[in-house]
């Protein structure tokens, strides 16, 4: 006689709680994701709410042009007997005090919080131009060599590993490297070497002296270039490798040299990707603080890099008649120290007494900075889309 069939599963163990664990895992992961999104949103919203009113205004032209076109200045806040606060700059302070007369109660000054942030914007722009120029040239050259010329093997693997490791070096280390290499020892042409020159080579008409470039845009730009080099090399190499091998074979089979092949059949198709990665490099270079602290940036500077006390060029002559001087003056922009946005934000946040007047400049600067970086990232995405459509295979 057969035993009656039952619903018992003979393999079943104790599975009590398995559904609860499943639910718990799902919720833990979900909550984690929500926290990330919430924090990001909170930061963005906070900066937008506090920063946008500084940059935008309700009246024409809707943008606070003063904030974007003036240099940072000390803000003077004068209080009268009725408790009204009058904000003015250093020049207006005396006039206001005279007008108030006996009504004057107190005056306080807030560093860097008046005026605008043109200096830091210009400085960051110059630093980015130099660093991306240098990094693109060196990075693409290096990527082409690694991808197209170097023989595969252990050595190449080591070079790649070294480049990847470079990406992990803390940025303050790059800053110190830049201080030693570019500020203090980089070669420059001078008539008389400075005392601190490491060594100098007389060339007859001038002297090549290893005495550094001093704290300037050039030093900072080169330092930043080394910060973003690993990103640019790695990305460029990937873009070069993504170009089909068949293009190279065909080109060589038609009698092209290796360089012609690269120039006409590889680079054009790798360029979109290289440009995209370089724009992301711009965002990175614009945002770094530590590498420029020792090499290029000042906490405060009351002049733009091209505002120097130089005798004006003769008024009668055209710019071409004095092209040497014109070029020298243009290049002189890059041998000036500058203010830079990230360092300016650091100064505002950590180096001055905090009050409601400082807050305006702080949030305004951060807001402008975020908008700049976001628009760079957005233009990178758009550029990639357009070029992808053009160069597809």
């Amino acid at each position, binding site marked *: 006689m057969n035993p009656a069939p039952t619903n018992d599963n003979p393999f079943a163990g104790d599975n009590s709680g398995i559904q609860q664990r499943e639910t718990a895992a799902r919720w833990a992961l979900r909550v984690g994701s929500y926290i990330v999104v919430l924090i990001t949103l909170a930061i963005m919203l906070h900066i937008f709410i506090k920063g946008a009113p500084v940059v935008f205004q309700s009246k024409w032209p809707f943008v606070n042009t003063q904030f974007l076109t003036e240099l940072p200045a000390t803000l003077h806040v004068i209080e009268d007997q009725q408790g009204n606060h009058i904000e003015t700059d250093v020049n207006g302070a005396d006039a206001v005090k005279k007008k108030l007369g006996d009504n004057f109660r107190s005056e306080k000054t807030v560093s860097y919080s008046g005026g605008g942030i043109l200096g830091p914007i210009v400085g960051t722009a110059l630093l980015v131009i130099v660093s991306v120029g240098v990094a693109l040239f060196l990075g693409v050259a290096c990527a082409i060599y690694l991808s197209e010329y170097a*023989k595969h093997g252990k050595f190449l693997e080591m070079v790649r590993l070294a480049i990847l490791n470079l990406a992990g070096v803390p940025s303050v280390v790059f800053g110190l490297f830049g201080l030693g290499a570019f500020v203090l020892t980089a070669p420059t042409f001078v008539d008389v070497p400075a005392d601190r020159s490491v060594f100098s080579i007389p060339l007859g008409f001038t002297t090549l002296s290893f005495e550094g470039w001093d704290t300037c845009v050039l030093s900072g730009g080169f330092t930043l270039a080394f910060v973003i080099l690993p990103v640019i090399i790695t990305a460029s190499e990937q873009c070069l490798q993504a170009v089909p091998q068949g293009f190279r074979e065909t080109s060589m*089979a*038609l*009698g092209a040299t290796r360089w012609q092949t690269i120039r006409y059949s590889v680079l054009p198709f790798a360029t979109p990707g290289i440009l995209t990665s370089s724009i992301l490099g711009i965002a990175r270079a614009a945002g770094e603080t530590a590498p420029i602290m020792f090499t290029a940036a000042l906490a405060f500077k009351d002049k733009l890099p091209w505002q120097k006390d130089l005798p004006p060029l003769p008024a009668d002559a055209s710019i071409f008649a004095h092209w040497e001087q014109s070029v020298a003056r243009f290049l002189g922009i890059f041998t000036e120290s500058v203010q830079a946005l990230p360092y300016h934000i650091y100064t505002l946040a950590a180096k001055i007494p905090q009050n409601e007047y400082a807050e305006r400049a702080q949030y305004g600067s951060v807001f402008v900075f975020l908008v700049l970086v976001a628009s760079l990232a957005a233009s990178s995405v758009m550029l990639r889309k357009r070029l992808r459509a053009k160069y597809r295979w």
Partner: protein
Amino acid sequence: MSADFTAQSTPPPVVQVRDMDFSYGASKALFDINLKVQYHRVTALIGPSGCGKSTLLRCINRMNDRVLSARVTKGEVLVKGKNIYDADVDLTQLRKQVGMVFQKSNPFPKSIYENVAYGLRIHGEKNKSVLDEAVERSLTHAALWEELKDRLHANALALSGGQQQRLCIARAIATVPDVLLMDEPCSALDPISTLKIEELMHQLAKEFTVVIVTHNMQQAVRVSDYTAFLHLGKLVEFAPTEELFTNPREKLTEAYLRGTFS
């Protein structure tokens, strides 16, 4: 092993492979190859996969140089009487004389015109009328001119697979090479495109000398004047195509043709 039957024909061969050994690093790929390719003839290289037919083809324009450890270890390859493995050979000039069409059609993602003009441009030709003339001539040779003359500046990738391969042929013959090497040019094409390219090959042979690698024996019969059969890196038999297919001298050839092995 190799037949010296061409010795009686008077014109010198355009390509002559003499006692050539070839290796990839430690592994030997070709053994003692002897081959003569006659002007304005189509020579087919057939044989099972891995027999070295593509390697042999790539020895003729030194495309194997791209592989690091690849070396000709013995013998020589003469093109128009000059050993192309001599130290003084300029690869760019050699490859101008010995063009190549690959298995996978791979036009550059540029215009049709720029694809055909590429070879001339890299050899320094800047004259627009010379380029125009060469593009028209090459596309006509590749039986593409009528189809494409009105859209020379369209992207080459917009063409069909068969058109792309014929464009690659036009690109290869634009520099007017003596020899055109074709590495299984039809293996990725549909039968109709294949037929067009086979018809084209007879036309091409009037102007150029064609060496074609094919895994398709019927194709070798249809297009070639001479056929070389390779097996395991050795040239087993080399004869006029009709002779090789109807009356092979070697047992191995006969076995391969009958399909006893492949």
